[in-house]
């Protein structure tokens, strides 16, 4: 496959998906997804459970490599390059931060959690790491709460703190794309609002894909929103239009108005 185009060729499009289909052990979980995620923006993905939202994210950062039975067809281009053309998928994943539904504080100190990515990439200098850790924790709105106990276990923080720790860890990768998968599912409303503020600030620097089970969250944050339903992409529409009854598909309107799902 020729991917001669330099990454900056299509700089207003961060993720370009064409006819994506995902199967688990031969069974179709998601099909017919064609969409473009604009760069430096928040792109919402909504839909009820089992609609294929998470599978979509997994295809973007090549989690299919480590999931037995997961097959991906169609193409996913990240910054102009098909993700399956990367010979070193680990390097691809370093460019893509992921935040999972349940916060995963790795069983190491808060400091080590945030320093891990840099360490894996060979940064040894303590002063450099200190700078990275502080910057990422500040940007994730967690610094003030943990600055005095960076040496305590990350897995002992509260759910909301752990989720911000996860975001700080993702930011420490210095990613160009941030994938969030229902990040607020185990987080209290106040923390959710803080994280949402963080995300609005981050979008000037990176592309954010926000998969959410809260349609109002998509409305607050995303400029465009995709609606997934039972393994299909129903539509991608400007978020405001979608919520003001101008969705292309009646099912979308029904979903965002809370009639099902």
């Amino acid at each position, binding site marked *: 496959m020729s991917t001669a185009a330099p990454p900056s060729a299509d700089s207003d499009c961060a993720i370009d998906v064409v006819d994506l289909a995902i199967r688990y052990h031969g069974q179709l979980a998601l099909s017919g997804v064609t969409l473009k995620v604009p760069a430096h923006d928040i792109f919402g993905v909504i839909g009820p459970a089992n609609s294929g939202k998470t599978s979509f994210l997994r295809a973007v*950062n090549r*989690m299919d490599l*480590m999931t*037995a039975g997961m097959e991906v067809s169609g193409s996913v281009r990240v910054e102009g390059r098909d993700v399956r053309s990367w010979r070193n998928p*680990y*390097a*691809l*994943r*370093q*460019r*893509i*931060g*992921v935040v*999972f539904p*349940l916060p*995963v504080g*790795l*069983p*190491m100190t808060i400091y080590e959690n945030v320093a*891990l*990515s840099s*360490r*894996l990439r060979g940064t040894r200098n303590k002063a450099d790491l200190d700078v990275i850790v502080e910057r990422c924790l500040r940007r994730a709105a967690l610094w003030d709460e943990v600055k005095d106990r960076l040496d305590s*276990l990350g*897995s*002992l923080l509260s759910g909301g703190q752990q989720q911000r720790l*996860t975001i700080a*860890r*993702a930011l420490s*990768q210095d990613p160009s794309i941030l994938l969030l998968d229902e990040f607020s599912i185990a987080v209290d409303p106040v923390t959710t609002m803080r994280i949402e503020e963080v995300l609005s600030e981050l979008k000037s620097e990176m592309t954010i894909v926000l998969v959410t089970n809260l349609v109002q969250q998509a409305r607050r944050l995303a400029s465009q929103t995709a609606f997934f339903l039972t393994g299909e992409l129903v539509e991608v529409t400007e978020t405001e239009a979608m919520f003001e009854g101008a969705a292309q598909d009646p099912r979308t309107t029904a979903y965002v108005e809370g009639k099902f799902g």
Partner: protein
Amino acid sequence: MTHAADRRDLAWWIDRTMQVLVLAGGLSAIVFIAGIFLFITREGAGFVFDRFDFREFFFSPRWTPTSNHNPTYGALALIAGTASVTGLAMVVSVPFSLGAAIYIGEFATGRVRETLKVLVELLAAIPSVVWGFIGLSIMNPLIIQVFDVPVGLNVLNSGIILGLMAAPIMTTIAEDALKAVPDGYREAAEAMGATRWQVTFKVVLPAARNGLVAATLLGVGRGFGETMAVLMASGHSVNLPTSPFDSVRALTATIAAELGETAAGSDHYQALFTLGIFLFIVTFAINLAADVFVRGGRRKYRRRGRRPAASANP
């Protein structure tokens, strides 16, 4: 006034009966262990209280219980024999079992993984006398040939045999420890771009550290308690080993070999039971330490509550 539904029906009686039976089963384990300890203590008590000389027992290498003039009961050589064989066994088995556990737990998938697990469990079922036989008939000539030594029944031989013998059970326990590390940790680290090895080395192994230490300790306990294979492969001569090519005698092997030829109640008989008490205390301490480590490992995840810590159940 009683409600019509308020009566002790069959389900209530079955529940009560089963609770009592299960309790009895649990208590019996404790009763048996306490009984064994009482028995060996009683048999060895006469020696411990009348004849026992702390300095002789722990610091003299002279184990000559059958001497007519001056029987001595120095267990140092036996303790050194057991310790040297167990130590070498750990040097052999820790890399093997850890490597196997990491491969099975972190790298192998699907059928390869299942097949390997079954094979490892089969290996654990090989009787120790078969291992002793291998030591005697295969390792012995091999060591004589390769290292050009007169006798091949020595620390090296029995250490390797014992190491291979302990490796499967250690692999199984170590793999359980790796399995108890939540998958969310692996996913989170891999999503950051960590390679499989980085995930294993930086995240999984530290998280499973206590379980891995416990696996090693149980291997040590196995080495301490193993009798037949060591009896057959170690040369069985009382000796303070100075090189891996020295023959030694183990505590367990001494009991097995000598107990049948002593008069019940004699000093020699009671001295052997004293060795038994010592072995019992050491293995008990090792198992207790392993248990403490396993519990320490579980506490770490309690806060998360995402997945209950897996039991050490193969």
